[in-house]
């Protein structure tokens, strides 16, 4: 069965076609990062305006690439939340209507379920159950995954997401928006011993996170030490070390607490090299194996929505004609298909 996946929850338009027998057939992505960079953050109305221009051209492109005709399609999946309401509605409107016109089921997919299942698109997918660390600009969560739709939140950020903390601190350091990756590059030149940032919430039990204080720490360090290039690199290094260390400590704790042996890491921050090195090390020490989606599927994409949608369409799930966007949608209310 072939399923079209449409992702429009934030600032990337993604469309893909997944085939339950042959795997991912085609995927296409349009990133709006450059559009929003001039504004110092994602402007929701501009995001919506761009999605409505891009969905159909990307759909045409993947149908051609996958040599797929409408008769070959068995379902249409679209991200219904969480995310920006107006942006989500574009994908929902197009996806739901398209499914009706084709006479196939439509499925409203939870964006974070897409990220959780993204490693299933790889040749060596993890078996259930596993622990997943979702780290992006919008989310930081540790989730126990026992199967499709069987998710237990083990811990999550009480304030800023890790990626958000990266971007905000990068802005403070004059690295523009979104500056997370630039901060990681700057950190390579930083002295790991000059500053020491706290590891928030690691000195007490539990798997929740808090990253907003690190930004304050960076502001104070910058004010006390001045903003010369080396100091900025040293602050970047101390900040990144603190985030990586904190995520690693909680991942180790989650593996120990659940007794599971597989760790899935997904979301934009999972592209961070220092984080990957560190998680590889702790997983080794815990006798666990780490799984990542390929880099392009660590960030938002249509492929993960097509995959999650395919699993749900195959299980018989189908939406009514009334469509909706759910900007706030807890992951653990999902049910198995």
């Amino acid at each position: 069965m072939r399923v079209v996946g449409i992702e429009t929850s934030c600032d990337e338009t993604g469309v893909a076609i997944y085939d339950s027998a042959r795997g991912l057939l085609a995927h296409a992505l349009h990133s709006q990062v450059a559009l929003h960079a001039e504004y110092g953050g994602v402007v929701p109305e501009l995001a919506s305006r761009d999605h409505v221009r891009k969905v159909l051209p990307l759909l045409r492109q993947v149908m051609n690439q996958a040599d797929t005709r409408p008769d070959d399609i068995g379902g249409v999946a679209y991200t219904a939340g969480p995310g920006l309401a107006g942006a989500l509605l574009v994908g929902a409107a197009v996806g739901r209507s398209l499914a009706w016109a084709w006479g196939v089921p439509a499925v409203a997919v939870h964006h974070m379920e897409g990220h959780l299942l993204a490693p299933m698109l790889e040749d060596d997918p993890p078996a259930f159950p596993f622990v997943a660390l979702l780290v992006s600009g919008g989310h930081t969560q540790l989730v126990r995954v026992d199967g499709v739709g069987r998710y237990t939140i083990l811990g999550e950020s009480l304030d800023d997401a890790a990626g958000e903390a990266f971007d905000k601190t990068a802005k403070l350091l004059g690295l523009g928006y979104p500056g997370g990756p630039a901060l990681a590059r700057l950190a390579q030149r930083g002295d790991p011993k000059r500053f020491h940032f706290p590891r928030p919430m690691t000195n007490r039990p539990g798997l929740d996170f808090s990253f907003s204080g690190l930004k304050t720490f960076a502001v104070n360090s910058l004010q006390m030490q001045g903003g010369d290039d080396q100091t900025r690199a040293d602050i970047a290094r101390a900040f990144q070390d603190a985030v990586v260390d904190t995520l690693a400590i909680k991942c180790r704790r989650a593996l120990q607490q659940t007794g599971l042996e597989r760790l899935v890491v997904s979301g934009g921050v999972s592209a961070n090299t220092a984080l990957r090195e560190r998680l590889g090390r702790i997983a080794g020490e815990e006798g666990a194996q780490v799984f990542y989606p390929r880099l392009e599927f660590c960030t938002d994409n249509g492929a993960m929505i097509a995959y999650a949608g395919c699993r749900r369409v195959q299980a018989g799930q189908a939406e009514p004609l009334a469509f909706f966007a759910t900007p706030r949608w807890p992951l653990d209310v999902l049910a198995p298909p």
Partner: protein
Amino acid sequence: MKLLAIDTSTEACSAALLISGEVRERHEIAPREHARLILPMLESLLAEAGLKLSQLDALAFGCGPGGFTGVRIATGVIQGLAFGADLPVAPVSSLAALAQGTYRETGAQQILSAIDARISEVYWGAYRAGDAGHVTLEGDETVCAPQHVPLPVGADWFGAGSGWAAYETALQTRLGGAAYTCDGQRYPRAYDVALLGAGIYQRGLAVSAEQVLPVYLRDEVAWKKSR
């Protein structure tokens, strides 16, 4: 000809099916309910007529101006339907649909369409009844403060739309205090999107799914950071 039309550009949500000049319509005043209502409305119209999407000649939609989200819901729905059923699309101005409905129901020959655009502005267009029973635009559609709407030529204009409900005094002052008749409770409706859309289709001006895009008129929606 057989044509299916929708409009979700304002608080109203409507769908209409035109078959050989006869129009059936579903219509509700339902702010923020458009996503829930619109496809079931279309389904019930088609079921009543015993038609399938693939048996239609064309689609039409109110392409704006109006509420950004509503206009995009109509655009997204029509993109999906047009792509999926391989149908041409007639984009119809929601200000024109508003004027056409006013002409159709009141007989007014000259209509000043005004939709409340929030932040003390209106979407504005002057329409005149034409030969084919369709209204046609005079000058340009615009978004501006009610104090600055373009002055229409001549007398006997009829004001229609939520812009008149919100800014009647300012508009009457701007238009010279003449006793304009107005009705602020009128909305663009799919009935009239269907009538005007049929004309657009018959004149060969329908577009393909990928060319189905909203008309916002207001393009200043974000301000760049000064650094």
